[in-house]
């Protein structure tokens, strides 16, 4: 995996072809096809609105709470989709890997790119709701771009790590799903983080060190309401601001080293 080769023309073509295939196959046989990518978040929004805004009356003190909620869910959905698809990617493409030689990382990247395209479509829907809800957008809404990239890098790093472990140890798929289940509740997605802080300020601060929580809260801050509690405005110590990024960098380095070392043997281990 020489750096110059990573996005060589040949590899870009293959990546593109695999992503297109994935996308064509995803909506194969459904009448509405790619429209489902838009409809899914729309219906999700309707459900969230009814459940949280009308019944649970949760997050009443947060401006535009349904959009706030939808944004969090959309980002989390991408994270789970990208990591789970990435985790299975190498094993599920075993037939290819055993028959032909090509850079293995393309498989992992292509599976996460499909999820990423879905995220972008979903974000368009979210954005429509943001405008519809009359959110005041500031110039800092542009910060959403580096935040989305940050989330993608994290998901990709995890996908690399888990996909190569999965070749040797199929248990990792089950473990990861359980972990995601727990992480879903340990991340302020469906509940406002204020609820945690009300119980324990310390716990609230700890939650914000999780990179996914940091990204979701930051996205809400820049896109929905600047009342959102974020790592930056809630945790005072400057050095702690580095932790989520450090986690991402460490996972990424580990993933690259592990994947590079093991990818040579995928063909014989699968």
């Amino acid at each position, binding site marked *: 995996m020489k750096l110059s080769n990573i996005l060589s023309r040949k590899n870009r073509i293959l990546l593109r072809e695999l992503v297109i295939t994935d996308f064509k196959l995803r909506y194969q046989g459904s009448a509405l096809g790619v429209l489902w990518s838009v409809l899914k978040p729309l219906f999700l929004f309707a459900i969230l609105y009814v459940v949280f805004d009308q019944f649970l009356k949760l997050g009443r003190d947060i401006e535009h709470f349904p959009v706030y909620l939808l944004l969090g869910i959309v980002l989390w959905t991408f994270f789970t989709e990208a990591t789970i698809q990435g985790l299975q990617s190498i094993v599920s493409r075993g037939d290819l890997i055993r028959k*032909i030689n090509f850079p293995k990382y393309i498989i992992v990247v292509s599976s996460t790119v499909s999820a990423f395209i879905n995220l972008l479509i979903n974000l368009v829907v979210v954005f429509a709701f943001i405008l519809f809800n009359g959110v005041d957008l500031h110039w800092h809404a542009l910060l959403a771009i580096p935040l989305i990239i940050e989330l993608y890098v994290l998901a990709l790093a995890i996908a690399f790590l888990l996909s190569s472990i999965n070749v040797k140890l199929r248990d990792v798929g089950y473990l990861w799903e359980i972990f995601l289940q727990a992480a879903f509740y340990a991340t302020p997605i469906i509940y406002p983080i204020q609820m945690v802080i009300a119980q324990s300020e310390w716990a609230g601060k700890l939650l914000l060190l999780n990179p996914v929580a940091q990204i979701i809260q930051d996205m809400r801050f820049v896109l929905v309401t600047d009342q959102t509690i974020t790592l930056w405005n809630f945790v005072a110590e400057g050095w702690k601001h580095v932790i989520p990024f450090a986690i991402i960098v460490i996972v990424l380095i580990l993933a690259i080293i592990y994947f590079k070392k093991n990818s040579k043997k995928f*063909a014989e281990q699968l």
Partner: protein
Amino acid sequence: MSEKRIAVKVENLTKGFRIPLEASSGLKQSIINRIKGRKGYRDFQPLKNISFEVEEGDFFGIVGRNGSGKSTLLKTLAGIYTPEKGGVTVNGKLVPFIELGVGFNPELSGRENVFLNGALLGFSHAEMEAMYDEIVDFAELGDFMEERLKNYSSGMQVRLAFSIAIKAEGDILLLDEVLAVGDEAFQRKCFNYFAQLKREKKTVILVTHSMEAVQQFCNKAALIDKGYKLTIGTPLEISQIYRELNMPTKKVKSTSPVEDGEIKIGVNLKINEAKLNFSIDVFSKIDIEDASVAFILNRDSGEMVYRWVLDEHISHEIKLTKNESKRIFLSVQNIFPDGTYTVRVAVRKRDKSIDYAVVGSALEFEVVASKGNNANFWKPIEEFTEE
């Protein structure tokens, strides 16, 4: 001799595997193995210190029996496996076909599959566009390319896959046993294409079991045996060694003499590469005047492939004397195709009015890697003597 460039160079190639002993690759098993101090795998080394070179323009055949390390060698050449020691150097674009239609997806159209397959082989969209018409023409699927692959017959799928393989314009073509696909007409087309590749001095590495293909197309061949012995030679030499390797060892199942009525019949056989040497013992408890012996070879499918009748070859009368044995030696050229055969022997009156004895399976034997059958399939050269 003009100087030729080396297309593929293999140096001291060694490759081994760890084969897991348990089918499951789970966490539980690996913990149990660790606790019990078991390795949980066995070492298997299909290739040891293999070296050879393929020059540009060579049609290089690789032959070997099953389990000889052929596939491992091929996959290492294709870069699918990483060598443990030594290395493979490839000059030019190597297009491997370990299996036809890798990555074919039944839900995509024929056209989409061509481009997907091409991308996997390392061709850009534009390059595939340039080859597309030729591929479709060669596969004879012009009207079907927009249909989904799942609606193709299996023959059509193979044709499409093989056409991509054949039309893909790499510098070095790596082909694995793809000779025997498609119907006869398509096969002929493929053979013609091989001949064309040979004329055009394309570099091809062909792994096959077919000695005919090796002799017909290759200019060099290598025989790999048990992974460490590699012999390189002319196609003729290699085919001969390959056939010797495949010489039958214990392929004859003899039965003890069988009695039918008053006659006991026993048949013995010694096989060598060229000949089947039968000795037929006929022991009679009664005197028989003017007898005849018929000797028939049946394939295991039941069809008769060879018939020999004693009285057609001699003019004098054959007498069987009470309590005496008569022995006939029959030597038949070994031109029979590979397979299992049974021997049927019948003793009759010469005018066929009486069957004294009929033994349905006096002997069973197997022919492996025969010389093959040429024009005179039904008429092997035969010799006989009687005692």
